[in-house]
């Protein structure tokens, strides 16, 4: 008699795989860093950045999986969106410079009710998505422009938009949501990205109390995270 076997659910297996990937990727990144220190060879910087990018993607997936598959509610707290954006921009700037992308900022400080790590991860994913799309397009004076904007929208919302040369419309976003999981299909014929980062950001947006939409400013197009403004108590 054949025993029935309980196989792990695909999402659990994927989560375990993601955790497992961190070890070899960390080793590649740190070994490349050490070689770069010792030999000053540019190739090692590229290897290191590729490994760190992969690590970040794996980590982004795990943060998303924690809320989505782990059915854990990411706890919401009051966050200063301007300071958080500043940190993310500092982190992603070296990648931007390497790919000749100029980040412009139009950010107002607002308190939002969200999850800090979830928002950082979502912003990182959106930046990467917009960078990867923008890098493929024509460059302005040798550089692509990416604009990050944080502004209040009505009384109860703050919108954080990341825009570049991204050929995306609201119907593209709807289509991408239907295609979720089919990451080998390009989001748009003008994009060289599979949209995985966008998919992760989309799922994270819901779990951190927000939503994802499209954004535009002049010639620039991209994506926008809408977040609830923090409702502060007014003492009379």
């Amino acid at each position, binding site marked *: 008699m054949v025993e029935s076997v309980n196989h792990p659910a695909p999402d659990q297996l994927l989560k375990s795989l993601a955790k497992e990937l961190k*070890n070899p*990727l960390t*080793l590649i990144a*740190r070994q490349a*860093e*050490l070689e770069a220190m010792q030999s000053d060879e540019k190739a090692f910087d590229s290897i290191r950045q590729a490994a760190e990018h992969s690590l*970040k993607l*794996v980590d982004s997936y795990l943060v998303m999986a924690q809320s989505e598959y782990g059915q854990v509610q990411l706890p919401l707290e009051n966050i200063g969106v301007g300071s958080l954006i500043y940190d993310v921009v500092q982190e992603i700037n070296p990648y931007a410079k390497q790919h000749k992308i100029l980040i412009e900022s139009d950010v107002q400080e607002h308190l939002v009710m969200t999850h800090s790590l979830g928002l950082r991860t979502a912003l990182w994913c959106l930046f990467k998505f917009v960078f990867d799309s923008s890098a493929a397009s024509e460059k302005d004076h040798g550089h692509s422009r990416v604009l990050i904007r944080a502004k209040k929208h009505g009384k109860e919302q703050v919108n954080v938009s990341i825009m570049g040369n991204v050929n995306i419309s609201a119907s593209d976003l709807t289509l991408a949501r239907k295609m979720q999981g089919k990451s080998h299909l390009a989001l748009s014929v003008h994009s060289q990205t599979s949209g995985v980062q966008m998919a992760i950001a989309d799922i994270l947006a819901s779990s951190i109390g927000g939503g994802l939409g499209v954004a535009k400013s002049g010639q620039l197009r991209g994506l926008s995270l809408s977040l609830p403004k923090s409702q502060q108590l007014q003492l009379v």
Partner: protein
Amino acid sequence: MDTVDVLIIEPSKDLSLVISQALTRKEISNSIANSAQAAISQADVATPRLIILEILMPKHNGLEFVYEFRSYEEWLNIPIIVYSQISKKELDAPSELIEEIGVKKHFYKPTTSLQQLVDCAEELLV
């Protein structure tokens, strides 16, 4: 009694060698232990001034190891840098407890460069 600047407690042999070489470049003497038991033996041979520790170790939880390590009087005050695959949030231990066991800094491996780790070690060894 012999001393060494840093004891690296890291289950990955390859990664422990990378950390060791990075420290050696800065003339920071170091020894490697790839398990909790090896760490106790190494510390016995040469007392470290600082420990770099991966919490996720096979067969032995890193925090339990620290408690055991601290039970020896001569190792009570050695500062610790945690350099781990689990983040501070995932560790889910109160910060007072972490401070109490002498952890001076917690670095998350995927997002911490070797340079940051070495710089922190240099600061704590002054």
